[in-house]
């Protein structure tokens, strides 16, 4: 026996860019990033309410910014992330079966489809009820 056994476990350093290694990891990071955009929108709405409390002139100045092109672009991006959240959320909730059909959890497509239908229905209800339609 030339050399004695040496135990020296090697721990590999973990890359901060691990999420670039495959498309599912990337989708996961985007999904988590949607959380940041949703928080941003909450603060934007708080700002909006603050401006509304400030009276007519304050709110008018606010709206000049709110409906400016850069703001529209930002809000479109936020909406994109919100929709990404919705779609991925429906897919995730499909993994926790709330009921079983003949002993098996319902097929994922059925759950996601039902969620999308409910989403459309609720959106329409909000549109009619809170906004009085378009």
């Amino acid at each position, binding site marked *: 026996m030339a050399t004695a056994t*040496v135990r*020296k*476990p*090697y721990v590999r350093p*973990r890359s901060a860019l691990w999420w670039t290694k495959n498309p*599912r990891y990337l989708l996961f990071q985007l999904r988590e990033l949607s959380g940041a955009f949703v928080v941003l929108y909450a603060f934007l709405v708080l700002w909006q309410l603050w401006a509304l409390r400030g009276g007519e002139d304050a709110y008018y100045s606010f709206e000049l910014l709110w409906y400016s092109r850069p703001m529209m672009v930002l809000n479109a991006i936020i909406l994109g992330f919100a929709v990404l959240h919705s779609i991925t959320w429906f897919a995730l909730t499909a*993994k*926790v079966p709330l009921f079983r059909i003949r*002993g098996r959890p319902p097929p994922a497509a059925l759950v996601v489809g039902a969620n999308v239908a409910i989403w459309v229905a609720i959106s329409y209800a909000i549109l009619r009820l809170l906004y009085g339609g378009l």
Partner: protein
Amino acid sequence: MAGTGTTRTIKLRIKRYRPERSDEPFDQEFTIPFRDDMVVLDALNYIKDHIDPTLAYRWSCRMGICGSCGANVDGTPKLTCALYLKDLRKRPVVIEPLENFAILKDLVVDIEPFMEKLESVKPYIIRPDDRPLERGAYRQTPEELDLYRQQSLCINCMLCYAACPVYGHDPKFLGPAASALALRYELDSRDKGSEERLAAIATEHGIWQCTFVGECSVVCPKNVDPAGAIQQLKTRAATRLMKAMLLPLAPR
């Protein structure tokens, strides 16, 4: 190996590690004869038999049931016995030890912490009232068996841990396989140990660390779906806690 005309060959690059020789792993390339019916494990065995007998790696059943032969092949955790060389596009084929585990030697990783995690979820039937042997076995219908069948198929291959980025940054994380094992007992009609078991896994490094990346379920060779299992456990644990807080006197 006598060839008629040209023998096809394939090049592999293996991440090796000899602790007595160096502090760091190193890559070594091998070119071996290649047939369509070869899996990655066959390549490793060929290298060990004909080129370098010091190559160290785990394997046993060579048919995808023992869970021994896990490795990262071209960046993805795989069972080397279940992956055909002909299905791999990259050259050289890159074989590395299972990601997120400490390397002991070559492709052999330290699985001791994993074993401890399996034990920590109390993977046995827990009942306050153990029936005497004479009363016979606890009976279970095929439908009751079906409820936990999926989670019972885990072969402890640890591919899910190699895929999990949370385990990647927190080695104390309970992880997918151990959690699926916990659910297997949760869903077993014979088990009455929910409270004990959930207490064991709903801890700081337990199921709450999971952020539902879902890659564990993608790489699982047995379709155990550990990601879904953890979400079910979270729901159970949270529901239990709510019930305990809102209805403290109700029977558990």
